[in-house]
């Protein structure tokens, strides 16, 4: 279960769309207290989120990706690249695809034991590279595309089979084509229960 809140201004926050994802780990290397792995990733994003960010999708969006991760008793590092394929809008306009790049470093300051609460603090650099697309509405044209980069501190708190992941994305670089809305910040909370 995840909730995403985006901040544009006080009138434009809302609930993001629900999604379904799967991951297949095709490589793994285990050592004492550490694990490295690589995985492919797939996701379907349904068109059921709140409106208010411009064009509404007419159909599902899809995400495909490749990720690498190292998890140790103290240090974490992840890297991933994903490509989002977006559906057209309800008015037939093209929504540009997006390349997503993520670099993550994390640290567990105190390597706790199995039955103790566990705290992993993370800092991410998230890039969103939006394809350049021209949308034509009648005689008017709108240019979409450009890049956004976010710096994202976060926390992963777990206790045995329960996890809480929380983080905030702060926009640090904005190179979007003129007239596009940008996100000042995004906050996300995820709860997971491993049955």
């Amino acid at each position, binding site marked *: 279960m995840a909730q995403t809140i985006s901040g544009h201004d006080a009138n434009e926050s809302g609930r993001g769309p629900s999604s379904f994802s799967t991951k297949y*780990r095709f490589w*793994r290397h*285990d*050592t*004492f*207290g*550490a*694990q490295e792995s690589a995985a492919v990733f797939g996701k379907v994003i349904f068109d059921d989120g709140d409106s208010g960010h411009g064009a509404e999708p007419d159909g599902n969006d899809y995400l495909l990706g490749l990720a690498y991760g190292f*998890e*140790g*008793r103290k240090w974490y590092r992840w890297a991933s690249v994903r490509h989002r394929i977006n559906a057209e809008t309800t008015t037939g306009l093209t929504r540009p695809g997006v390349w997503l790049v993520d670099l993550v470093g994390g640290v*567990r300051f105190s*390597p*706790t*034991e*199995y*039955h*103790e609460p*566990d705290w*992993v603090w993370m800092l991410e650099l998230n890039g969103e590279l939006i394809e350049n697309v021209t949308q034509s509405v009648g005689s008017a044209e709108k240019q979409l595309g450009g890049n956004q980069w976010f710096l994202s501190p976060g926390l992963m708190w*777990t*206790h*045995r*089979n*329960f*996890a809480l992941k929380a983080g905030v994305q702060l926009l640090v670089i904005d190179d979007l084509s003129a007239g596009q809305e940008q996100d000042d910040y995004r906050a996300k909370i995820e709860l997971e229960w*491993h049955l």
Partner: protein
Amino acid sequence: MRQCIFMAALMMLSFMAQAADRHYELHVDGMACPYCAYGIEKKIKALDGVDTSSVEIKLNDGLVIFEADTPEPMDQASLKTLINDSGFTLRQFQVQPINPKQE
């Protein structure tokens, strides 16, 4: 007579209390976080004969410890498969009888 019955009952209870007859110690690679290791606990507890209260995971030592009572000792190959299915690697396996006189 009452004393004999009492002693017999005590001996039976003593026998029942020794249900777990082997102690297993697994050295597991890849256990970096508690949330990840939960899968091992779940699979070990689901094995026939395992004393679920004895299952212990020591992350900082890379150890999974448990006790079980089975007709034959659990073999390394099956435990290696179980650990691999949980997403980790079994590096070393040790089994010891809890009560050597019963072997």
